[in-house]
């Protein structure tokens, strides 16, 4: 469905179900050069099991209008405006990669309006190498290929032939990049990850339970790089848990069911 957020037409995938104010809401936030469709199994399942789902296309990405966020903080403000536009008083925030930082920052600002925080493939700081930043800006197709190799534990389909992972992600990256003719959203997204400095402070300010979903073979956001946030969650007395999956950075497509079950169990129990 489309919402008007800050005067811009904003697309949210609802898992094929109409929005119902009586149900709890889960907001899914994608990463750099992705869109709502990376969450397809997880969102459709939750939408059919008692949740409202709002899997957003971030501003300036694919079906959503508006300026692509130039920083995590700017994107977090958008998430707050999105909840207002949808009339959602309280929601679970689930983010992947860049989206995990956006969810984290939004949760720290929205406090009790956030019921659960799920950080999939997260790291702090989320530094991006200068070579990759340069490639994203000047040779985006080359950078897209690099990212899609780095992002996965294997190039072969982990679920066997017939399940597309690498090629579909390449195609999605090309579509998202082409969807914004004003800004290189690839470079802008990576720059936002690289320049975000408020991660630990934001974690200290979160008031809801936190789930980390990490890929043991993740080269983009290694489990080690998530440790600062895990430590901060522990040190600041958060209720938190860590789900370690035997995959790379695309947890949602490499192990779709394990990722779904981790999120589902966390949302049910916390």
């Amino acid at each position: 469905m489309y919402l008007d957020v800050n005067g811009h037409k904003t697309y949210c995938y609802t898992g094929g179900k109409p929005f119902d104010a009586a149900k709890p809401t889960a907001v899914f936030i994608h990463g750099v050069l992705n869109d709502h469709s990376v969450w397809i199994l997880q969102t459709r399942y939750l939408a059919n099991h008692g949740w409202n789902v709002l899997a957003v296309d971030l501003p300036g990405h694919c079906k959503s209008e508006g300026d692509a966020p130039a920083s995590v903080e700017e994107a977090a403000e958008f998430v707050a405006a999105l909840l207002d536009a949808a009339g959602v008083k309280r929601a679970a925030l689930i983010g992947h990669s860049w989206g995990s930082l956006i969810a984290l920052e939004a949760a720290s600002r929205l406090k009790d309006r956030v019921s659960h925080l799920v950080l999939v493939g997260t790291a702090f700081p989320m530094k991006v190498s200068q070579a990759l930043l340069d490639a994203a800006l000047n040779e985006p197709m080359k950078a897209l290929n690099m990212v899609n190799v780095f992002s996965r534990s294997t190039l072969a389909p982990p679920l066997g032939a017939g399940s597309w992972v690498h090629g579909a992600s390449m195609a999605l990256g090309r579509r998202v990049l082409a969807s914004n003719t004003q800004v290189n959203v690839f470079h802008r997204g990576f720059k936002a990850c690289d320049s975000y400095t408020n991660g630990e402070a934001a974690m200290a300010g979160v008031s809801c339970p936190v789930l980390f979903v990490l890929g043991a073979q993740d080269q983009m956001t290694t489990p080690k790089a998530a440790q600062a946030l895990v430590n901060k969650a522990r040190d600041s007395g958060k209720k938190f848990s860590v789900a370690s999956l035997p995959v790379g950075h695309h947890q949602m497509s490499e192990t779709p069911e394990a990722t779904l079950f981790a999120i589902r169990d966390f949302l049910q129990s916390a």
Partner: protein
Amino acid sequence: MVGSGAAPACSARVFFGETVGNPGLDVLDIPAVSAIAHEAGVPLLVDSTLTSPWLVKPFEHGADLVYHSATKFLSGHGTVIGGIVVDGGSFDWEKSGKFAELTEAYDGFHNMVFSEESTVGAFLLRARREGLRDFGACMSPHTAWLILQGIETLPLRMARHMGNTEKVVQFLASHPLVSRVGHPLLESHTSHALAKKLLPRGAGSVFSFDIKGNRAQGKAFIEALKVFSHLANVGDCRSLVIHPASTTHFRMTDEALAAGGITQGTIRLSIGLEDPDDLIDDLKRALKAAEKAGA
């Protein structure tokens, strides 16, 4: 043709073409045709069976959907019947506005909107799910395994197919009993320049040639071949031969055959992986037999 204004008025839902025509090997100008299709707001579907992904990647030239008969080069050994369809993920079904079956709720599938489910795989989602549900179109595991195993050696086989083809084409082009060889390798072929541009590794190993002489000589030629198998398949590891006018294209009128570049004396070859000298020796013997039959 692009920008002529003709394309948007067209009522087509899809533009379709073969990367190379069978058996004339006319090369499809994929960039030009895709530009017209996109101007009309419809996708370009390409049959790349005779070229396989090793000779051309149609998506890189503007195609939106590709299919292959996997019976041919992909499996490579003439042992299975199967096919694949590939969605390049680039066509915007919503922007087109012509494909409600992908962009609006489908009550036969719990009101699923396929273009929302998958940004890049909407067509495949519906094609696959509906095909399975309505027709039970599910490949046998053994067939799928043979195709997958075949694909593992595709680049090795295609290089050999092309090398053998070049030698056979050159042999036939210089033979006095051959009036025409229809392969873009030759400057005389109408698609020679386009093939050099789009198919730098070669325009495939399935092509036709015409024998000078009568119908009986054509029959004598085919019956004298010992290495080539007389078979309707193409893209096999074994070399194959057929007489299109009496087999694959027998339903067509003489006029339609002529429009397709086929005569009563046209022979179609599918060059395999044998020693090229054995293939040329076989053709030499058969051409000699054809010559004798006309004496």
